[in-house]
C-alpha cells in the first residue's frame, strides 16, 4: 500500500515541487499550507510521515511538531524538517521537540526521497 506523506509548507512553489517529486514516486500526498492547516489531516487517518517547513504563519513547524507529539495516534510518526534554516541551535530545538530529521533547502529530489525512505521503516 502506498505510504501517505503530509507536506506542510507556506510556499506554494515548494509545496508543488515536493508534491510532484513524491507523487512521481508513488506516495499519497496530503498538503497543508501551514501548521494550523496541517492539523486538520491529523484526524486519526494513517499518515506515515510528515515533512514540514520551519517558518510558517499561524502555527510554525516547531509548534506543529509539539502538537503532533501530544496526539496518541501520531506520537511516533517520523517528522522531517524541510527548511532553509541551518543553525545548529534550531536543529537542537527541533530535535527536542521531537523531529526525526532535517533536510536543508535547496534540496535535490533524490536527497529528499532518500531521507524519506530512510525514516519510513
Amino acid at each position: 500500500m502506498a505510504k501517505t506523506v503530509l507536506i506542510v509548507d507556506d510556499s506554494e512553489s515548494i509545496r508543488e515541487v515536493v508534491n510532484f517529486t513524491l507523487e512521481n514516486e508513488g506516495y499519497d500526498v496530503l498538503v497543508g499550507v501551514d501548521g494550523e492547516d496541517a492539523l486538520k489531516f491529523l484526524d486519526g487517518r494513517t499518515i506515515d510521515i510528515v515533512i514540514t517547513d520551519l517558518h510558517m504563519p499561524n502555527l510554525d513547524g516547531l509548534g506543529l511538531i509539539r502538537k503532533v507529539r501530544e496526539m496518541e495516534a501520531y506520537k511516533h510518526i517520523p517528522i522531517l524538517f524541510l527548511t532553509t534554516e541551518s543553525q545548529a541551535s534550531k536543529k537542537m530545538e527541533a530535535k527536542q521537540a521531537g523531529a526525526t530529521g532535517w533536510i536543508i533547502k535547496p534540496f535535490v529530489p533524490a536527497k529528499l526521497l532518500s531521507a524519506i525512505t530512510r525514516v519510513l521503516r
Partner: protein
Amino acid sequence: MIDKFKAKFVEESLDNINDLEEALFLLENDMNNREIIERIFRAMHSLKGGGAMFGFNHLSEFTHHLETVFDLIRNDKLAVDNDIISLTFEAIDQIKHLLQVGDVDDADEKAHQLAFIQRIEKVSNTGGVNTEAPKTQSAVAESKPAEEDGSKSFLIHIKPNDDILKNGTNPFYLLDDLHAMGSAQVLAFAKEVPGLDQFQPISNYCQWQVILNTSESVNEIKDVFIFVEDECEISIEPLNSSNILNNTNLKNLVDTAISEQKLITKAQLDSLEGSSSAEDNAPKDPRKRTQLKEHKISSMRVSSVKIDELVNLVSELVTIQAQLNLYAEKSGENDIVNLAENIQKLTRQLRDNAFEISLIPLQSELMRFQRLVRDLSKELDKEIDFVIEGGDIELDKNIIEHLTDPLLHIIRNSVDHGIEMPDERIKNGKSPKGTIIFKAYYSGASVIVKVIDDGKGIDPDFIREKAIKKGLIDNKTELSRKEVFDLVFLSGFSTKDQVSDVSGRGVGMDVVKKKIGEIRGEVSLDSEMGKGTTLTLELPMTLSIIDGLLVKVASNQYVIPIANIEKIHAIDDINFGSTFSHVITIDDNQYPYIDLRETFQEEAVSKGTEQLILVKFEDKKVGLLVDQVIGEYQTVVKALGRFLKKQENISGASIMGDGTISMVIDTNRLIHNNATNKYKK
C-alpha cells in the same frame, strides 16, 4: 524538473514581495510590533529559500543578508528605526529587480549588488552579533554532482551506543545517507557480536567505518548525524588524497582490515600509494509506481488567460441558451420548455460564478499607491498620511488593470500639486501633515473610487482663464462650476506651467479621462480653495455582462445599460408636437432629448405612442427617444471589431437569442457628443 516550477515561484514571490511591502508600511507606524516583524522575516525567508531552490541565487544571497537584519530584530538584538525601514524599502526594489533579471553575470550588476549588501551588513553589524555565513551560496555549490572538481575524501567512524536501536534509529540509514553524498566504501566491524545465548536483539554490537569521497563540506556530513549525535561516537577525518577510492591499493587495505576486524587509521590511508582507476558511479534507478493520488488544497492559482477563456465561454453559453429558450417557446413542447428552463437556471448560476471568479479586490493594487505616496512625499519633503477605505471592494480584473495607471497619475497629482509644504500648511492654519484618502465603495451596479486630498485646492477662475488662454473656450462662454472643473479633462489643458519632475510627464488629465472611458467609467473633479480636491471615478463592476433595456429604433434593436436609466415615459404624438429645439416638458420639468432615429439616420416612421427614456448624464437627466421598449435583457457585451473601433456612440455589440445583433449604446458618450456638436453649430 525545477524549471517547471520556476514561473510559479516568480508569481509567488511577487505576492511575497507585496506582503513584505505591506508589512513594512505597518512596521513604519508600529516599530515594535512583533507580529509584523515575524511576518517580514517569514516573507524574506521564503524568498531566500525559494530563490536558492529555483535558481535565483543572487536574489537568495541578497535576501539572506536582509533576513539577517530582521533575524537580529526579532531576537531583540537590533531595534527598528527609520533608516532600517528606508533601507529595506530600497532593498525590496532590488529584490524585485533580481526577480526580474535572474542570475545575470554583469559586472555593474555585481558591483551594485555588492555595495548594497555592504550597506545592509553595516546595519546588521551594528547589532554587534556574529551571524552565520551565508548558507545559500555554499548550499548551491553542494547540490552539484559529486564528480565535480573539489571533491574530497573522508574517513568516518561510527560507533553507535548499545541502545541506539531502542529509539528506532536504524544505523544502516546513516550509511545510506553518507553513500548518497558521493561514493563510499563501508567497512563493518562485528566482532563484538556475542553468541546467541547472550545476544539481545534490541542491542547494537556493531560499528562502521566509511571511506567517503564527496564534494560536500564537513558540515554537510555532520548534518547526517545531527539526530543521532548523542547516541553515537562519531569521528570525521579529512584525508589528504582527493579521491582515495580510486586508489588501486585501497582494496588490499580494506580486505585486511575486515578480515582482521581492525579499524583503519587516517595515517594508513594517507600513506597509501598507488595509481587511480576509474570506478563506476552509476546512479540508482528510482522506483516508479503509479497510485491513486489525493489532493487537498483549499485555494489554487489559475492563469488569468484561463479565466478570460472561461468567462468568454460562459458568455457564449448565455447566448446559445437564450436561443434555446426562444426555440422552446416556439415549439410549445412541454418537455423542451422544462429542459430549457433548467438549463437557464444552471447557466445563470454558472455565469454568476464565472463572473465572481474574475473579480479581484482592489487591495492588490493599493500597495503601489501607498508606495508612491511614501516615496514621493519623501522626495518632496512633504508629510502625508495615506488613508485607505474599502480596499476589499472587488472589481473585474480587466478593469483593475486599466485603473492602475490613471489612479497613479491622480495620486501623484495630489501629492505633487494638492498637498502643500508643511510650513505653508501651518501658515494656513492646517496641520503640517496632509492627508490623502483613497476610498472605494459600491453604488448600485457601479463602484465609486474617490481620491480626496486636503491640500490647497484648485481655483476655478484660474482654470477658466487658462482655458481661455489655451483657446478651449472663449471669454463669453458661461459655464457652471462643474463645467469649469470638467475643463481640466480636455486635451491640451495642463495647469502647471512648468513641467515638474513628478507629475509633468506629458500625461494630462485628458489621458486619465480617456483611459477611464475605455472601461466605461466616468471621472469628475471637485475642489474647494484652501480645503482640498476630490477626484471621483465611477466604474462598472464588470465589462462583459450588463443589464440592459432592449429598445427598438425603426427596425433595429439597441441595448441601453439599465444602470444609467432613470425613468421611462410614454409620449404621445400630440404632446410631442409642443417640443421646441429638442427640449421636452414632462411633469413640469424640462429635459433635453436626443432622437435616436436622427442619431442613427433612420427615417422618422413613428406614429402614435413613442417612448422617452430618461438617462443620467453627469448631474442632469437627458431623454433618449425610441420607438418601442421591448424589455429588460441581461446581455453579454462583445467588443466591436477593429473596423468599428472609432464608432463612439456604441460601446459594443450583443448577440440576441434569435441570432440577430444589437448595438449597446454608450449613453454618456452619445449625449456628450451630441452636446458638443450642438455647440459647434
